[in-house]
């Protein structure tokens, strides 16, 4: 054991990771592959997030987009919407970033054996679900059918299109829709709830995993309920201002939830349905 391994840093201190690869997914979405320089963080579960530090700029919560238990680098997919996400998006191979985590609740993959699963994502929302999708595509379970419904703004803003196509070849029922396209696109054009309209299985008894902008999640959840999915079987991923990631700075509160600890994955019923409908204004 080295000195570093014996001295566990406090929960506020980031572990250093190096960017070993990067990919520009769309004009504002980037994936980074990170490998540890300091002792690595604990094993994570699909749906959890890390606090990533761009040294000199700041720290933000980013979902882990690689599959749990997969060997090799940990992946994070970042959307450029602010100073820190911009700095992370601009990271070059070889740069050092800070990682704290893993934090939060997960999608509960162990509860998905033998049940049908419908995954509904919008925008960058597929990133927090990519680890779970990889797991579902690679691990067949008897009596489990998986449907994936993807919404994006434009065809060139679909994240991970090659992987989506591969999942389709691996037996996932895939449908993708965009808000607008030109006639070169032969896929669907319309909101993601329109391609939810037909599931290849009965909604009752199915589990739904939903991730995307909050408005998209609540419209999708309502459509899923109309299709017979039990509200408590719909899992959404919520976010608020996260600063410490360890349930002691008070910023990520949403009603009774501390989202860094009780979320980001929460069941739509009994509470999230109201929480994501009412603006606190």
């Amino acid at each position, binding site marked *: 054991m080295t000195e570093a391994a014996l001295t566990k840093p406090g929960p506020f201190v980031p572990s250093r990771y190096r960017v070993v690869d990067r990919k520009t997914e769309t004009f*504002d979405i980037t994936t980074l592959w990170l490998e540890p320089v300091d002792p690595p963080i604990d094993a994570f579960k699909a749906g959890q997030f890390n606090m990533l530090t761009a040294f000199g700029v700041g720290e933000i919560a980013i979902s882990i987009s690689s599959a749990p238990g997969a060997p090799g680098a940990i992946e994070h997919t970042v959307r450029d*919407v602010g100073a820190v996400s911009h700095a992370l998006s601009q990271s070059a191979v070889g740069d050092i970033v800070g990682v704290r985590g893993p934090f939060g609740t997960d999608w509960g993959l162990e509860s998905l054996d033998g049940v049908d699963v419908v995954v509904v994502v*919008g*925008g*960058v929302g597929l990133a927090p679900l990519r680890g779970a999708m990889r797991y579902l595509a690679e691990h067949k379970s008897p009596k489990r059918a998986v449907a994936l419904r993807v*919404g*994006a*703004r434009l065809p060139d*803003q679909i994240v991970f299109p090659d992987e989506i196509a591969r999942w389709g070849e691996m037996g996932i029922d895939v449908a993708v*829709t965009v*808000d*607008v*396209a*030109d*006639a*070169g*696109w*032969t*896929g*669907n*054009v*319309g*909101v993601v*709830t*329109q391609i939810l*309209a*037909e599931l290849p299985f009965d909604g009752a008894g199915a589990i739904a995993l939903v991730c*995307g*902008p909050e*408005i*998209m999640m609540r*419209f999708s959840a309502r459509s899923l309920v109309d299709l017979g999915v039990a509200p408590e079987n719909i899992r959404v991923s919520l976010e608020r201002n996260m600063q410490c990631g360890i349930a002691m700075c008070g910023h990520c509160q949403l009603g009774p939830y501390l989202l860094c600890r009780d979320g980001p994955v929460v069941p739509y019923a009994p509470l999230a349905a109201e929480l994501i409908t009412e603006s606190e204004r």
Partner: protein
Amino acid sequence: MEEMSDLIAKNSLFAGLPDSTIELAVGCAQNVAFEPGARILVEGEPADTLYLLRRGRVALQVQRPSGKPLVIETIGPNSVLGWSWLVPPYRWQFDGVAIDPVGAVAIDGTCLRAKADADPVFGYALLKRISGVLLSRLQSTRVRLLDLYGHSLDD
């Protein structure tokens, strides 16, 4: 070979309505098929048909001077294509182009309007159904206008 009344009753617009109502629609209906690429609806042309899609998808499109036409929405199986036969000036607002091989029940708009005028009970039942579909489409369109995946509303 399925009966026309069964084909019509399968479509979400007519599903669950009484047999007598469906029979009225049968009198205006015929089976049609289109190859991929076929322009089923043509912008500006007289609108006189309601299509109950059975299989295949149709892209609602709008032409522009240069570049490929823009797709506004994809209408899929079990859905309804074409509303401009319902209200004057009875002209298509957009193109409707088959993406896949399309099979549909084509219902003559003039015929349907005449039967609705003659039988207000039938007319009201039809209109209630049509309103529901239109409302759903409007709400979906409104959600798309929010541009949820874009940056346009953020600071």
